């Protein structure tokens, strides 16, 4: 399987969110399959408590070391990030449908989009799509409806074709929030 990331990997602003997502992914791969919102609440509580302890410990700030101050900053950033994402999700909810295009980049004589399907996966790589998923073999258009859950979102678009290798494409949060189409340059690697 080929993994494709459409997000900007060097975005510093997204770092705390990516840390939370990474933790969710690690817990999931370790067999701890709990909803994302629980992990976020847990992380929020731990970070808030840690931030409070560090804040108390560092009073007045000038007397303590830089390491503690950095720890305090990191915890605060994590708390702010989680709260920010919740607020954003309340103010600007994710759509319940993901649509876009697979834009063919191959010169194969047989159209690889014939019989191709897409589905949505959450961060634990579980399928969350409910309806749709067929890909228009001429236009490459697809639309998938999924079950929305607070604190969670579709993370991956799984492309399955009868002739090409399966591809997992990471869905950028920005495009999901903007409700803009997920257009992917699709390079079919033929199954041998």
């Amino acid at each position: 399987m080929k993994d494709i990331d459409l997000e900007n990997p060097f975005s510093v602003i997204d770092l705390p969110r990516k840390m939370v997502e990474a933790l969710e992914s690690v817990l999931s791969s370790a067999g701890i399959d709990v909803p994302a919102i629980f992990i976020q609440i847990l992380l929020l509580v731990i970070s808030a408590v840690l931030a409070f302890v560090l804040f108390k410990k560092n009073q007045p700030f000038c007397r303590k070391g830089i390491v503690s101050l950095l720890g305090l900053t990191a915890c605060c950033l994590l708390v702010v990030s989680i709260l920010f994402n919740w607020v954003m999700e309340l103010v600007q909810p994710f759509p319940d449908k993901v649509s876009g295009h697979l834009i063919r980049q191959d010169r194969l004589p047989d159209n690889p989009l014939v019989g191709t399907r897409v589905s949505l996966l959450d961060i634990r790589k579980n399928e969350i799509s409910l309806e749709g998923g067929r890909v228009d073999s001429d236009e490459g258009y697809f639309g998938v409806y999924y079950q929305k859950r607070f604190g969670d979102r579709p993370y991956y678009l799984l492309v399955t074709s009868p002739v090409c290798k399966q591809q997992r494409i990471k869905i950028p949060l920005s495009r999901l929030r903007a409700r803009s189409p997920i257009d992917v340059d699709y390079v079919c690697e033929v199954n041998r």
Partner: protein
Amino acid sequence: MTRVLRVFLALAAILLIAPNARGASLVVRGVVVNETTGVPLGGVSVAGEYGNYSGSSVTNSEGQFEIRFSYGSPPKLREVAIILKKSGYGEKTKIMQLEQAELRDLRFSMTQTLGAAALGPEDKSRLGNEVSSDGRTLFLLPYSGDGGPDAASAISLNRLAEAVHRFVTADFQELAKNASSFPPALKAPFSIRLLPKETTVLSDAERLTSIGRYLNALALAGGSKAVVRQGGTDKLLMESKFLIIPQTAGFDAYYLQIDDIVPMRQINTLKFHEGLSDYWALYILLAFSIKEMRDTETSPDRRMRLEQIRSCLKAKKAQYGPADKRKVASIDTLLKSVEAKLRQTGVR
């Protein structure tokens, strides 16, 4: 008494809810045609998916189908996927947006793949890298006489390809000046590529057509060449067969003949192309026109594009005199077809 009242109320609630829960249905109607000829296709298996509901149908002799989806609660996704399958044709999936309660007068087209499908996996693997992405490539097959020890074999196909390309480009530029409107498709670059020797033999028309379709070629050409002595000078004699690949209604893939006689002293100069037959330019123009006619089938600016083809063909026809009956006849045949298509679109 209270229990009886509860049962009564429950029954009343069920009766109130029942009309809303009663099944609704969605009807999808349309027609399936052959993409190149426009002829309705019967016996096409049409499957439909509306959310998690599915239905299927088979087209009648007029290419018509109807699918009825019966559902309890309507799907969230307001889209219907239609999957078309027919032996000898490429499978197709179309996603239709559901903006009204019904989808009517849908028109789908399917492309015949029998030609390409007739090729074996070895052929496909050998030719796979040669497939033209834009259908604007003339493929040259090795000429008999290549590889021998005589003077004719010393003239490489590359040299011929360069000369043909230069000749046709110059001719199209001239046409663009004289035509009142000119198809942009003819202004865009085209290419000429050489195919390996073991590809096929020219006499096998069916196989050649299959290869052409597989390669998404504009045309295929090949033949024989020899050096002959005429009037005290050595001349290169080339007999080429030219096969136009794109199809449209009334124009299936067909063979054309081109004879070239070029003085040998001209071959290795920049004027090689000037000695080539005008049929090269004419037939490539015909091939592009047929391709363009086919491409206009689903185009929103169909009328304008057809008028451009007509103008271009007329400009080419004007280049010929009374002695060029064969050339004029081949243009006239295509012009008639363009006129007929224009009449269909309501333009005079």
